């Protein structure tokens, strides 16, 4: 378990740097397994407290159980929950049938943009991991976004030792990625080690399927699996050669590179 404690120590350090340097800090929370670990690590870093708001960009298409879980945990752990939504796009009828990249851009990327504009956050903590997808493999722990939320991946700042980019010009913000070095297996190993509560959509509840990755209902598909405990998930992941986000439609083709360049998580 030493490797998990090493990952934890690094993530906690990143959290504390973020809290020290950003007056207006928020953390994206999607209720998925990575968000679950992210929230737990925040409580580790701040000794049981979460001293910044949790932001949820609600596309309105989330699996209903996710929203119930969100509201219940926010109540029980007394979290400062801020929900954002691109109401205009929804009023105009945006949905995945108009194109998955278009829908993600409108409801998630632009939904986040609107929330950032409204609240003026200068630092956003996100649970992206380098092993999820190849453009995320090239991220920094502290990754600047310009005033249009764009990611200039051609010219990322140097990141030396534990010295991160914590100063930035007005109207830009920094994305902070404490989970960058974690793998999907590490997430589950840590959930097991710390006995962290998580959504049971990740487990087979009798029909021989479970979700490996959670997102919007129309674009996220369960996998065939009989894993009904964390141990069984870990065992399954060690044996599998199927990519984690195979059930996420927006990843097809060059979808992610284009989405992320424009400010997608």
């Amino acid at each position, binding site marked *: 378990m*030493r*490797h998990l*404690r*090493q*990952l*934890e*120590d*690094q993530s*906690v*350090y990143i959290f*504390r*740097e973020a*809290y*020290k340097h950003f007056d207006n800090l928020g953390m994206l929370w999607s209720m998925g397994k990575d968000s679950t670990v992210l929230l737990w690590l925040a*409580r*580790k*870093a*701040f*000794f*049981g*407290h979460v*001293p910044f708001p949790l932001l949820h960009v609600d596309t309105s298409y989330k699996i209903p159980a996710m929203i119930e879980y969100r509201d219940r945990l926010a109540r029980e752990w007394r979290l400062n929950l801020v929900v954002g939504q691109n109401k205009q796009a929804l009023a105009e009828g945006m949905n995945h049938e108009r194109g998955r990249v278009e829908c993600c851009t409108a409801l998630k990327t632009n939904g986040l943009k609107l929330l950032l504009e409204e609240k003026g956050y200068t630092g956003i903590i996100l649970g992206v991991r*380098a*092993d999820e997808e*190849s*453009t995320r*493999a*090239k991220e*920094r722990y502290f990754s600047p976004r310009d005033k249009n939320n764009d990611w200039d*991946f*051609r010219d*990322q*700042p*140097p*990141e*030396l*030792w*534990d*010295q991160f*980019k914590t*100063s*930035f*010009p007005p109207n830009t913000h920094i994305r902070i990625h404490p989970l*960058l*070095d974690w*793998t999907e297996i*590490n997430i589950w*190993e840590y959930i097991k080690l*710390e006995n962290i509560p998580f959504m049971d959509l990740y487990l087979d509840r009798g029909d021989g399927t479970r979700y490996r990755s959670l997102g919007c209902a129309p674009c996220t598909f369960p996998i065939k699996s009989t894993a009904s405990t964390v141990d069984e998930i870990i*065992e*399954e992941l*060690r*044996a*599998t*050669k*199927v*990519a984690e986000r195979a059930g996420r439609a927006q990843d097809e083709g*060059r979808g992610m*590179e284009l989405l992320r360049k424009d400010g997608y998580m």
Partner: protein
Amino acid sequence: MATCKTETEAAVDVRDRMNIVIVGSVDHGKSTLLGRLYADTGTLPEGKVEKIQAICKQQGKEFEYAFLFDAFLEEQQQGVTIDTARTFFQWAGRQYIIIDAPGHKEFLKNMISGAARAEAALLLIDALEGVKDQSKRHGLLLSMLGVKQVTVVVNKMDLVDYSQETFALIEKEYRAFLAQLDVTPQFVIPASAKRGDNIATPSPQMAWHTGPTVLESLAQFSSESEQAEQPLRFPLQDVYKFDARRILTGRIASGRLKVGDQVIFSPSNKSAVVQTLEAFNIEPPPTQAQAGQSVGITLDEQIFVERGEIVSHESSLPLVSTTFRANLFWLGRRPLEMDKSYLVRLATHEVECRVAEIHRIVDADNLSLDQQQTNAVVKRNEVADVTIQTRAPLAFDLYSDFETTGRFVLVDDYDVSGGGIITEMVADREETLRIEARQRDFAWVTGDVTLADRAKHYGHRAALVLLIGPDTTGKTFLAKKVESTLVAEGRHVYMLDPENLRRGLDADLQEGDAREMIRRYGEVARLLIDTGVLLISTTNSFNLPADQTVEAIRTLVHPAPVLTVYMSQETTPSPIEADLSFTGPEDFTSTAHAVLTALKEKGIIAETIGNQPVFQFSI
């Protein structure tokens, strides 16, 4: 593991983890090696090779293993890695993050970002091209970045007919180069990433190679850190007061920390005893911690300490100075200039600095050559030997003794623009006084009343207001005015005129003993400040330049806050950067109020007395 679908070693339980970087000149085959390693060990996701093959076919070009990790369209189109990629690989019970660093000179900052995260490196050299400038530059940077474990891979052996002779020449040349950096490669491996020779399986073409394959060599890197065995270095990251606990946090850089330890904070020289180690969801709470851990501690008393201080045991203290010599690599868009203001960040300490001297530019091609020419600037991607001077004393170590507290970055404008390792402490003018202050502070005996208690009681923190400037500008008059105004408010203030020490404490001194007079004055001031008083003083009697006077006094009363006020008759610029400046003031009442306002802004005096003033003793 009955349900395991594969028999690869990937399924073995993880014992430890390690970050490895692949470096070397552009086109020497780093991304190809990485792709091959994954493909030959069966650690790629299903369909990944097929997906890339399809893209290649569509674009009408030959499949390359490098495309597996060069994610950006531009990278694939240009066939060059732009930015560092983290890739994940598990083998023989160890989880690796293998960092593919770009070799192109233009992306050196990305290579450095990758290598700075690594504990070990694979350094590639193209057998056909041999040792290039960039191969040496990368070797030099690895040693500066603290990557001590290096295995050299001589790649593209297929292009030189697997010639043992060619390999031996390259090995000899590069070993000689690394020896100058005190680096001994663990292995030098002949390989062909494109054809898979000596990557995951031994090459039948090179039976003469008796060493390991690249895959086997990974297991030979040690992930055991020796840092826990070193003396304690715990850079303070932040102080939290979310609930009843006042928790000091940070990551232990080296050594061990236990409940009950007497610890010293540098450069403030404060000391306290560790009362608890705080943790979330760990029962029972830990009683000790060691290098690498992010921890929180509480102390037996509430002392004012700030982010940036280095916690250690008294038996092994960090160095403290305003000046040090360092080897530095520069990555900024603008060249590094002398006498321009930068920020130095060392562990968690951040302080303004300037480059006092650029001794030489280090040429990777010829390390031993000592060019004596002086350089005005350090250009992007150059390595230089420099002297750096900070505005306030900094606690640090030599890089040869401590890794984390012996290195730093320089920030230009908004960007981290360079990094360096400290090679030498340079004693500054205050060195003697600083040592005296440290020794005196460690031995200082106090009662049960703390400075924080006194601050609460008096409605202000203990501090020193220094009035500087030419004679007859009204300094003494202003000092009296500030004193009486504050006393009228009920504050605990005292005007100490240095002249008062002359006939008494300094009676044995001659006129020329200015440094000794300052030392005695500083010690008296330190004593009074310890009583919680707000001290006001002029400085002309010392007969020394103002900057020297202020620095010496600052050193002796450190870490008490010092407010400097410059007074002149004409608009002559202040010899020091004063907190406040007045030119020929006539209205001393408003001037005195300006001083009061500054004291409030600095958090030295509280707005009101009696209403339980809250002092920011945490940060």
